[in-house]
């Protein structure tokens, strides 16, 4: 099992974490066409590469961002949203 580093609790086994998905900016609902909105709601990018993702350390309910290289199966860094402080 993998180890993921929670910015609050340090390295923990990945079974303690919940994966939400990629960080994706929401388009302006008023400006987006139905098609643009549907693309945002339903389509995901599965191409391997470096992803910014929402993860939650569930026992402590801590949300943070993990940058993962899904091609090389590496966690590059983890930090609190929105910055990298």
């Amino acid at each position: 099992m993998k180890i993921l580093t929670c910015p609050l609790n340090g390295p923990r086994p990945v079974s303690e974490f919940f994966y939400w998905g990629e960080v994706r900016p929401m388009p302006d609902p008023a400006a987006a066409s139905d098609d643009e909105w549907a693309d945002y709601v339903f389509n995901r990018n599965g191409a391997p590469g470096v992803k910014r993702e929402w993860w939650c350390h569930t026992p402590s309910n801590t949300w943070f961002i993990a940058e993962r290289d899904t091609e090389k199966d590496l966690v590059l860094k983890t930090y609190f949203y929105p910055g990298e402080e």
Partner: protein
Amino acid sequence: MRLPASSGEWIDRSKPVEFSFEGRTFKGYAGDTVSSALWGADVRVLGRSFKYHRPRGVLSLANHDTNALHQWGDQPNVRADVTPLVAGMTLTAVNTFGGLADDKGRFLGKMARFLPVGFYYKAFHTRKLFPMWERMFRTMTGLGSVDLASAQHTTPKAYDFCDVLVIGAGPSGLSAALAAAAQGADVVVVDENAHAGGSATYQIGNDTSRRRLLAELLAKVAADACIRVVTATYAAGYYKDHWIPLVSADRMLKMRAGSVVVASGAFEQPAVFRNNDLPGIMLASAAQRLMYRYGVKPVSKAVVLVANADGYRAALDLLAQGVSVAAVVDLRPAAGSAEPQAKLLRQAGIEILPGSCIVEALPGADGLCAGARIATLQADGSPSAQIRDIACDGILLSVGWAPAANLLYQAGTRMRFDRAVEQFVPEALPDGVFACGRVNGVHELERRLADGTRAGSHAAASVGFGRASGAALPPEAECPSHPWPIVDHPDGKNFVDFDEDLQFKDFRNAVQEGFDNIELLKRFSTNGMGPSQGKHSNMNGLRILARLTGKEPQQVGTTTARPFYHPVPMAILAGRGFNPERRTPLASRHDALGARWMPAGAWQRPEFYQVAGKERLACIREEVAAVRKGVGLIDVGTLGKLEVIGPQAAEFLERVYTSNYANLKVGMTRYAVMCDESGVVIDDGVVARLAEDHFYFTTTTSGAATVYRELSRLNTLWRLDCGIVNHTGAFAAMNLAGPKSREVLATLTGLDLSAAAFPYLALREGEVAVSGGKIPARLMRVGFVGEWGYEIHVPASMGGALWDALMTAGKAHAIRPFGVEAQRLLRLEKGHIIIGQDTDGLTTPLEVGMGWAVKMTKPFFIGQRSLAAIAKKPHKQQLAGITFPVGYSGAVPLECNLVIDGGDIAGRVTSIAFSPSLERYIGLAFLRPDLAAIGTTVSIRLTDGAMVQAEVSATPFYDPDNLKQKEAA
């Protein structure tokens, strides 16, 4: 036959152990394995082969003697070569028809030419005959039998940590452990054998200095407080971030290591010649194990086939233990570095035949090995026609090694085929993974010690202990493995894979048919697919494929190594079941009242309360009647209970729920629906405003954890000035409902319960009197089950006292506790939907009559934009009430039965039940919108195909104007 006792042997001759095999009683010793005890009792046939049912004996004694699989009571496929002998064991060989000695499956050997390689894929094209073939092969194949009545074995799981995990306690592994520990690391050494020492315990060559070296190594390890040695346990796989399951007879230990040293050694490999499977033919290392670990004489008179110095040492070991050696046959032209050993052998009068091979083993009348047919090798590597027979009762094979690199492959190591050692060696290791010893292509004993020291030092340094010292060793001076220990024979039966009875010609045929890629060849021929997973066959298979296709072994490559290294029993994998279960603070009250429990998400809730002598349905209907006519009490403490506090708390709720909450008055509650971004309903509850900047709200029982988690994420994203608190476990909650509820509550609280002071949908904070004093409570006048009622939330520790007080106060009105079934019925009568039961993963609020709760005029809520798009299109379905006539006595649909219109699916039933209050069946169904008008008759197809009619009806079914639950307007 047993040898005289010797120092270092693993058996305890003072402890005889009796057991039976195939109906006969035998005696072994504590410390024996099943195979060593049987071989020591001169049993030569330990099992039958898988395909041709040929007799088989000892091959490796290293966990790949997969023809010696035994049934032990309810345990199938016990591996006799490594399973410790237990007193009273009753064993039979698997895969025989009518016993091991008279196996009726023997005739299959004669039918071999009708069972060509890949026949599974060729024989079963006729659909008509397939059932016959299937029956036949299910009988013929499969090994041990499963006892369905056997008791469940529950095994524990353990978890541990170490800085450096060393896999393999042979000379290189022990050296690695000492080096790592010397640099300060906490080291664990794991080995699958009963004792540490690896090959140093048996590859002795009658050389006392080797014995002394091992004794010193073991003493140093034992004296080192930083090293823990775990024996009789194997590393079953490699998982990310150095997570290694360590499996022993009764449990799995999940070891998280800082770094890993793989010192797993090598598997000695058989030579391929005709009849190389006769009992008495075994790997030289197996014979050495028999002698030095178990004090068993492997054979009486041996021919030793060698291609390395290990073989000459094995011959010396045989001589030292009183086995006569008929000849040493060396595949190479000269003894090379083994010249000193060869000299000793010659001095003892042993004939050495260099540049020769065994073309065939000769069976005796009993089917056991009775001789070896020897030929010299010609320049092209094939045997000459001049043969010579040598009588012997055993042939020992020492022609080469294959690295036990399974875990290295699993960890992602890039391997390269090294012609200097004729094996794959690590080329690029992943971070934190190290290899040493034979698996690293280092074979000579002194060099293995040095390689282990290097790997241990580097492994410790990689986790921050000391400085890495030592560099990779120069290549081995002499190749330990022969590149082609294979002799073709026109009559075949020269086995490459003993698990699957694959002969040399099977490979040729498979390649001829186009299966000339290693992965295809494996699957077509089944090479390496038997229980030993190619540990003795993959290397020779690869050599054959390389030669047949004119490629280098590097180009041919290996098949993928997957967990597990050895088969792990299901019971060990399963371990004990851990299903977390939550109970509310009132659980003991429910038990005392005869509750029948049911799961609801992670929670256990009372389904109903059992009244002595009454049927389940009668109990539920009585509970319903009590609520409708008097008063009932239900535990709703499983609801999610959250608070949001802060100046922007209202703004937060506006964004996550579909209704308006900014305009909710303090002291009032409002129903709340939550959607996801696609506009699908995902949760509902009630929002109460405690203060301008303070809301208390509930979620569904099963949604509590996920809703809280997602709201926390949204608040992280939005950075609104408010905080969310999860009080789900901190509060007890119960709903007091029924026409008499106000009277009951009035006896316990000073709050003004008049309709004017505490109106419908209001929230009041006040005190409730219980035995021993007054407790603070939040009371909400909600409809819930469609009667006058109060939902009361108190701190969890006070829940029991409140329940008791309400039950006592309600006695005068025959109060009844009611469970989930009654609640569902009461709520169905009111047409209330259950999220997840009456909705699915595509249901929008617009389709379930909740448009009133969706405020599209708000600036934003999650799902709003999608609902705006959806609203422009016609609905695909509409949730509607359905009823059956009063007195209807026909069959009734079940949930999920389909609504059919004109032969097409036009909807489905989502909920249905008999309403005692209305004396008829009522339900909810998704319907095509054109069928959803009230009064329409719809046809529903029952599970058995019969059709019934129901009428679309208005909801609520009961008290449509909601006069019972609220004061008249």
